[in-house]
């Protein structure tokens, strides 16, 4: 089923989705666009390249509350916090970011113990993928083609959206998406020429080229393993790194978290919060021992975890080439270039 709406009427679609559940969509902020919960349908803004922070927070929020407790009360009086089971609509997600969810699914939703929070949020959410605008130039930081992802890839979306001049085309991909699409009465049926445009866009998406590094994931995984002890290399590529962790916070595939107790005036919350392997105390043990005191050791951990360890453990690189880490880095460190350099060793 292919439907359409005028982009200037997007707020009407947003209003309908807000009636049905929680709407997360790109909004314009001071520094650029980010996904946010929509309270005012006029705020939805599809005039963006990609968001500064990835949409992973829809399933893995920066803060996830586990338990509320009171100091002085017994443990049995602590109150477990349930995840809201209201339907969620995640609107306007770029194909590389949609792909990141399926990679995170392996870790949180398939391997070993299932993470109840990720799993419940994922189940409650309908994903509206959104093709990159093929008439706009590719950002120099992007390299999702290297990871086998294309600019107009509908895979993983429930509904996939393509911009056609002043219109937005919406295609049902999964049964869940088809069902929802049929209920959205602000949309109209698309015509034959729209069908053709949609199909052509998907095809043309393959020709919309990002930077490309020929990555055979097993080759790169083994290479990084082999150069692990090459301290000269790691020192060189990390020499500018401030260890600020910005790259990990914007990343759609970084999932390290901390669990902490936040108490104020005798009342507290145990929650998990995003954490980063780039921070000095990340691996600091109670004994005082810390295996990663040096910046190069932490940057090496970040890159190897994504491109080597993750491949060995889960069979897939934990990166989608969205380019956010490169765009956000205050000292212009580029993970793509480091991998490229490593391959030359």
């Amino acid at each position, binding site marked *: 089923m292919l439907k359409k709406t005028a982009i200037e009427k997007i707020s009407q679609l947003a209003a309908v989705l807000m009636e049905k559940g929680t709407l997360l969509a790109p909004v314009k902020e001071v520094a650029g666009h980010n996904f946010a919960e929509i309270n005012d349908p006029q705020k939805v803004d599809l005039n963006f390249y990609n968001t500064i922070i990835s949409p992973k927070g829809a399933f893995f929020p920066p803060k996830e509350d*586990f*338990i509320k*407790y009171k*100091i002085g009360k*017994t*443990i*049995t009086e*602590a109150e*477990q916090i349930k995840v809201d089971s209201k339907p969620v609509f995640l609107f306007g997600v770029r194909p590389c970011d949609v792909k990141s969810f399926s990679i995170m699914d392996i*870790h*949180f939703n398939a*391997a*070993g*113990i299932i*993470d*109840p929070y990720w799993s419940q949020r994922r189940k409650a959410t309908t994903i509206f993928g959104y093709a990159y605008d093929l008439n706009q130039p590719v950002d120099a930081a992007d390299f999702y083609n290297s990871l086998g992802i294309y600019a107009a890839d509908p895979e993983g979306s429930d509904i996939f959206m393509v911009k056609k001049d002043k219109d937005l085309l919406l295609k049902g991909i999964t049964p869940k998406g088809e069902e929802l699409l049929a209920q959205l009465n602000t949309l109209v049926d698309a015509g034959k020429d729209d069908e053709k445009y949609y199909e052509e866009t998907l095809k043309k998406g393959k020709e919309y080229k990002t930077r490309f590094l020929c990555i055979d994931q097993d080759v790169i995984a083994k290479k990084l*393993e082999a150069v*692990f*002890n090459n301290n000269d290399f790691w020192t060189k590529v990390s020499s500018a790194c401030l260890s600020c962790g910005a790259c990990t916070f914007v990343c759609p595939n970084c*999932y*390290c*978290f*901390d*669990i*902490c*107790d936040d*108490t104020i005036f005798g009342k*507290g919350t*145990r929650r*998990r919060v995003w*954490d980063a*392997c780039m921070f000095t105390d*990340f*691996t*600091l*043990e*109670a*004994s*005082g*021992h810390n*295996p*990663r005191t040096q910046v190069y*050791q932490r940057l090496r*951990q970040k890159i*190897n*975890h994504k491109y*080597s*360890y*993750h491949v*060995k*453990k889960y069979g897939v690189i934990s990166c989608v080439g969205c380019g956010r880490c490169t765009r956000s880095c205050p000292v212009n460190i580029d993970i793509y270039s480091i991998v490229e350099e490593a391959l030359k060793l």
Partner: protein
Amino acid sequence: MSDNNPYIPMPVQIAKITNEVDTNDIKTFRFTFLNKEDEEKFKYTPGQFGELSIYGKGESPIGIASSPTELGYVEFTVQRAGTIVPGLVTAALHDLDEGAQIGLRGPLGNSWPIEFLENKNIVVVGGGFAFTTLRSLINYMLYKDNRKRFGEITVVYGARNPGLLLYKDELAEWEKRDDIKTIITVDKGNETWKGREGFVPAVCKDTAPSPKDAVAVICGPPIMIKFTLPVFFELGFSKENILTSLEMRMKCGIGKCGRCNVGSQYVCKDGPVFSLAELDQLPRDF
């Protein structure tokens, strides 16, 4: 764990506290479960650990010191941390009295590979405080129904001085038994110490356990491990037959939070027990 949410601790009560050492900073806590169903679900194997949980302080991953053959409770031997990094949970725990309630998550991690150890001669080597999950293993093997499943058992256990030996009463019991060879040593004795003096590596060399059908299970401070391993290599133990338990900073304990990642392994989930052959496959990043 309530509602099968692996992040929510189950309530336990401190049934007994044993002060293990002269310095008063290592205590064994015996916990009983507040809910019968939690006790039934907490099925563990020696070598596993649990997350001790105190709201307002946090959680600490601690090896299980009791044996699963001991029913109705679970024990953890905990050192008060804090000389270098402030140990909020362990300090709070040390300040609690019998009867207090805390949280527990687990059992977590892999374990000493019991099936692999069966029908083999077991050499247990421990140093200082790192004897807790070894105690669990020894008591498990010594349990009347289990003893025949294992060959000869040799234990070499050392501490810096007699006051720092853990489980002193049990050590004395083991020394009396003829189905386990127990060798206790201290780096330096005192006026009342009648036992052996000497470092663990040297004592292992003197003891010279045969590598034939044998597995060595070694836990201790890095310096002890460093000098003990060459002794076992010289005796002819292969890397597949030397096991140890790894330390890494942990949070979730279930292989999700990424903190204890070393190479392709999460120490909390894929470990903490590894053979030396397995450790050779990992980057030296721990």
